[in-house]
């Protein structure tokens, strides 16, 4: 088995008496989609935030691409190749979709401390950004301000940004949220191919998508991983059925 690109070891995060992350260990291997499921409030987003660096764990280790990233800032982790999308779209609202993606291209293609060359006349920024938007299916709306885009379209911008970052691993926090059934099925097909490029840690409530995509599933309940396994193993797990899946599976 290939070495995991992302490994989380005994991660702990408490908010007062609430154990948001309770000794969580999991990993992400090359070429796979590892889905993280669980009821609301299970600590999925908190876990993603700790991996991305927006929150600091109280204890535990996170290593990425062979190095401990626990002490690194959000920006440093992103530059190492951790591409995150947000559960609630988090974009620069006054900028167009294209300029949002160009910012990601700019971040990977060298310094942001360049003061004179206009970005809107820089094909080395615009072309990759446009290509990413095209792959995310939003090329026609590239010049529309994000504030004027629909909820689903903003999700597509988030995906395009993650693509443009040339990430070595994707952390996708509910990418299907707010998308219509058609959008979800299109995105499912897209993510299916994306795993070849870089593995995906996928937080998702859409069980059809999860069962269709995931190579492995971890189930998070009250901050603890109660089970990790293949789709069939998770479907059959009695504890998971009781805690989360109910009749759905």
């Amino acid at each position: 088995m290939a070495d995991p690109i992302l490994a989380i070891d005994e991660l702990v995060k408490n908010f007062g008496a609430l154990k948001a992350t309770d000794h969580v260990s999991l990993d992400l291997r090359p070429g796979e989609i590892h889905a993280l499921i669980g009821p609301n409030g299970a600590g999925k987003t908190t876990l993603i935030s700790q991996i991305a660096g927006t929150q600091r764990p109280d204890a535990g280790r996170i290593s990425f691409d062979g190095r401990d990233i626990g002490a690194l800032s959000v920006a440093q982790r992103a530059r190492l190749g951790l591409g995150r999308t947000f559960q609630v779209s988090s974009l620069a609202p006054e900028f167009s979709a294209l300029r949002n993606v160009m910012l990601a291209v700019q971040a990977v293609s060298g310094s942001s401390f360049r003061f004179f060359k206009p970005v809107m006349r820089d094909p080395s920024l615009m072309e990759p950004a446009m290509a990413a938007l095209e792959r995310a299916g939003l090329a026609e709306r590239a010049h529309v301000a994000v504030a004027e885009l629909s909820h689903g379209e903003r999700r597509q911008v988030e995906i395009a940004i993650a693509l443009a970052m040339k990430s070595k691993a994707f952390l996708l926090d509910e990418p299907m949220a707010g998308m219509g059934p058609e959008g979800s099925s299109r995105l499912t097909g897209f993510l299916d191919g994306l795993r070849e490029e870089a593995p995906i840690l996928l937080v998702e409530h859409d069980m059809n998508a999860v069962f269709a995509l995931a190579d492995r599933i971890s189930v998070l309940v009250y901050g603890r991983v109660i089970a990790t396994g293949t789709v069939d193993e998770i479907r059959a797990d009695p504890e998971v059925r009781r805690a989360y899946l109910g009749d759905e599976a």
Partner: protein
Amino acid sequence: MMTRETTFNISIALLLLAAPIAAHYAGEPFYVTLATRIAVLSLAAVGLNIALGLGGLVSFGHAAFFGIGGYAAGILASHAFAGSPLIFGLPGTQQMPVIWIVAVLFGGFAAFLIGLITLRTAGVYFIMITLAFAQMIFYFAISWPAYGGEDGLPIFVRNQFPGINTLNPLSYFLLCYVLLGLALLLFRLLADSRFGAALQATRQNDVRVASVGIPPYRIRLVAFTISGMFTALAGALFADLNRFVSPSMLSWHMSGELIVLIILGGVGRLFGPVVGAALYVLLEFWLGGITERWQFFLGLILLGVVLFARGGVIGLVAGRARHG
């Protein structure tokens, strides 16, 4: 095709150039001085517009950099005038280019140091801490008798620029006008550059900026430093315009005035500071001639802008800002 904003900007630029030239040949040097005041305050506000307009950093302490620039001019000139050395035996100077470089370097250095600390905060805390730093420098200037303390420091003869008679009001205006033009050009380049894109994105959503791998703190620190440099240059020009530097250049009123200029003209807009400064100086002149309480009317106008024209005068004329 030219946008409405560009047409408006060019008109303003030409008007600001034509009015003092006409006044000069009509034998009205006072109006030339008024226009110079507009140009210099515009330049100071262009500096603040980098931090406030592009970066969303509401600095309530930019008087610090304005005053530092002013004192750089005053102190260098006073040593040159008296023939006494500065520290380390360095001589003073009355050459504007040297004074400007010193002003810009000290202004930038002060902004860098203040930014290092203040930029770790945000919102109201940022406003208050920038104010606190500016007040520290203000009280330091008041209690430093070597350079006039509370009474300020006169510049007996306006400093010199090679090949130009700076004592001629029109020549001095043109010098300030050219510097303002350069500053506006730099602002435009900066706003459209990679750095500008990152800076404007941190204003809108700094989590997003960090998540693509750009460190927002460093972007802001560089922006704040550049912002302080512009404002310090304006301070040096202001001191030479008035031939006088006093702690009032460092006071919080000055910081507030710069913010008001930008809000009046249009936050983040290229010519926002110019339009704001022109309005401010002209209101001060006309209404100030009618009543001592002219700032009451300024307050009413500001209220009108904030309530009904968020984009300031430029927003009113040219509509909302567009970001491609």
